């Protein structure tokens, strides 16, 4: 793409178009005004969603990126606009989500003078971006943006930030866009090393109790089919991390559940009984491993991971395959023998039965006057046949949703894993719906977290984005309350949250809304929500002092998982 004598601001817009960007989430302000002026000319080709707080722009870009499988774009002005993006950038960094953030900056001659709305955004965002760069001349814009997209989307994805001084936006130059395909110092991906794949195959073929763990890397590389094929051919049980959820259908016979602090009983305890552990695109986060010296010590670990810095970071590996998950599994598959492990699989079934009896049946039993979260999620799952995109916030409802929603379609789980950012859900759901208007998107959110970014109801209103919002209201900061109950002697310190009338609030944004506080109406209310052509807000009053189990207490090993 070429255009002579255009402003830096127009170049920003043309660069985004050259990258195939269709929408931007953002908020204007002084230092980014020239870009907003340019956006006006291109509003038929590049839709801008005006969020109500820049944190929402970053999370919306994340939600969009997760469903579209390419970088989401957000934009903000200098100073407070840019600092409001920071939480979302940190979230994208730890969850490897590709987003491109564009911030305005004061003019070059004012840099370092504590000018109005000058903040060292490059300095602040440095540890939470994969790459960042300050542009001070218009001519740098196309190359900087091209690099930004390449870096955000290649290898292990992540957030990048381009800070553009105001003078660079207003200067004129001859624009020419070339996509970036290579950077001398950047080696995002390795070829699959066949000798390590052979060693991995050898370990797997000789295993007696192999166990495969899948994470976000499987989702990012699109390796769902390969995982399924491997599980079927080699008979290996597969468990997922929080971010790996929906990569494999929960109904697949080889799928044995969800790992981690509030995951399923079987995959957690049996991690310490497998003899070969095959970790694919996951990073052994402490929420998955529990205490490291009590984690899978008996197992030989195969780690298939694109990022060399993850190898041996937390868990020592026997064989590391540093490669894209899909490519690595494609190389591995033909080397695997057809196997079945009936006794080993039976152990998972036994654990499932234990969990069912001790946890799940209780969670589903209508023993309380108000419905429990698990009941609501179970019903939602059945009504949508596991086919909806579920965005969750952080807390008990997140763990209940990810435990009980029976994901049956890939790219359906949008949640803040590594950072655990309350307030993530609503804007991320908006981004997901913008990215996949053809799919049902349900935002499952707690009454606490909803209030952290509820101003984004304004975006839903203004652009008619048919997101379904399901607030599970326990009138508590539930997850913190659970910890206070279990580990702080029931001293409920500042978890009792007084809420506004959410229904009226949603209605004030012209969003149809309803509150339910009994089981009788629940199914019908959920159906009404799901069938609504427009956005819909449903508040379900749920049991106040419900707890999420199983639970691996902080500092315990996975084998010490508690069922009650």
């Amino acid at each position, binding site marked *: 793409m070429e255009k002579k004598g255009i402003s830096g601001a127009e170049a920003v817009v043309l660069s985004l178009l050259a990258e195939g960007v269709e929408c931007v989430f953002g908020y204007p302000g002084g230092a980014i005004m020239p870009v907003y002026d340019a956006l006006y000319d291109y509003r038929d080709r590049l839709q801008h969603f005006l969020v109500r707080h820049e944190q929402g722009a970053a999370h919306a870009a994340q939600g969009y990126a997760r469903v579209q499988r390419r970088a989401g774009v957000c934009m903000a002005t200098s100073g407070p606009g840019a600092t409001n993006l920071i939480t979302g950038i940190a979230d994208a960094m730890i969850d490897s989500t590709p987003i491109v953030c564009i911030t305005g900056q004061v003019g070059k001659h004012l840099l370092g003078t504590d000018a109005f709305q000058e903040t060292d955004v490059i300095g602040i965002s440095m540890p939470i971006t994969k*790459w960042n760069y300050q542009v001070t001349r218009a001519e740098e814009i196309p190359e900087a943006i091209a690099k930004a997209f390449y870096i955000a989307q290649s290898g292990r994805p992540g957030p990048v930030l381009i800070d553009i001084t105001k003078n660079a936006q207003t200067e004129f130059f001859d624009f020419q866009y070339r996509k970036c395909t290579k950077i001398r*110092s950047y080696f*995002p991906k*390795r070829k699959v090393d066949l000798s390590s794949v052979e060693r991995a195959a050898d370990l797997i073929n000789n295993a007696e109790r192999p166990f495969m763990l899948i994470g976000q890397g499987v989702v990012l590389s699109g390796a769902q089919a390969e995982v399924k094929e491997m599980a079927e051919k080699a008979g290996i049980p597969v468990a997922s991390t929080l971010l790996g959820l929906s990569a494999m259908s929960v109904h697949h016979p080889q799928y044995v559940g969800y790992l981690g602090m509030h995951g399923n009983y079987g995959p957690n305890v049996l991690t310490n009984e497998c003899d070969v552990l095959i970790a694919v695109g996951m990073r052994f986060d402490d929420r998955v491993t529990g205490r490291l010296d009590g984690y899978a010590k008996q197992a030989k670990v195969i780690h298939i991971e694109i*990022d*060399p*810095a993850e*190898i*041996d970071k937390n868990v020592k590996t026997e064989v590391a395959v540093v490669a894209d998950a899909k*490519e690595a599994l494609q190389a591995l598959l033909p080397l695997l023998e057809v196997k079945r492990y009936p006794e080993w699989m039976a152990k998972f079934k036994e654990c499932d039965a234990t969990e069912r009896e001790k946890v799940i049946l209780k969670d589903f039993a209508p023993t309380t006057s108000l419905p429990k979260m698990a009941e609501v999620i179970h019903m939602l799952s059945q009504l949508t046949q596991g086919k909806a995109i579920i965005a969750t916030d952080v807390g008990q409802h997140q763990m209940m949703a990810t435990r009980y929603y029976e994901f049956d379609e890939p790219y359906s789980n949008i949640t803040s894993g590594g950072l655990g950012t309350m307030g993530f859900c609503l804007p991320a759901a908006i981004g997901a719906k913008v990215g996949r208007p053809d799919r049902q998107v349900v935002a499952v959110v707690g009454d606490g977290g909803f209030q952290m970014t509820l101003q984004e109801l304004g975006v839903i209103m203004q652009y008619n984005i048919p997101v379904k919002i399901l607030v599970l209201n326990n009138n508590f900061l539930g997850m913190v309350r659970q910890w206070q109950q279990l580990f702080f002697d029931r001293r409920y310190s500042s978890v009792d949250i007084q809420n506004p009338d959410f229904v009226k609030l949603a209605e004030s944004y012209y969003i149809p809304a309803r509150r339910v506080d009994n089981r009788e109406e629940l199914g019908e209310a959920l159906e009404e929500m799901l069938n609504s052509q427009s956005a819909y807000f449903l508040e379900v009053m749920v049991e106040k002092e419900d707890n999420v189990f199983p639970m691996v207490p902080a500092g315990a090993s996975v084998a010490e998982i508690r069922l009650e």
Partner: protein
Amino acid sequence: MQALEENQQRYTVSIFTEDKVGLLSRITAIFTRRKINVDSLTVSETENKGISRFTVVIRTAPDRIGVIVRQIEKQVEVLKAFYYNDEQIVYQELALYKMPTEAFAGSQVVEKIIRDNYARVITIEPEFIVIEKTGHEEETMKLFNELKPYGVLSFVRSGRIAIAKPMKLLKVHLEELENISAF
């Protein structure tokens, strides 16, 4: 030089990077975030134009150094990073000592100290003299301690610079990286 804590070792980390603003913060953040003290840090251009070399001396546990260096290599503008123990490198530091000129008057002692330590005088002013010594930290410190009784006005020591003993060129390392990479 600070004493090593238990299970710590001293490492010299050589980092080859693009010559870009901001990389220094990115690299130091990798250490500070892990509470690793940087004993010294030197940055200079290399024989290859546009490529800088960071020489960082740190103390850390042997089972952490590899992970840390891979985190450094992960930075987009870092070409390659290596770590060495003292046996694997040839290294030097430079120290300057500012002494009052009268310390030399009427006595040969200071002059003898300078000669015995293979140091040299680089400037003589009416009021002060500047002495230079290159060597390992123990050597530059030894000279400092010997000069101290005669009045050291100012003492400064550079960070360590180091050259690795293995003969493999950076270019070869980079070619190997190219060969195992997919783009």
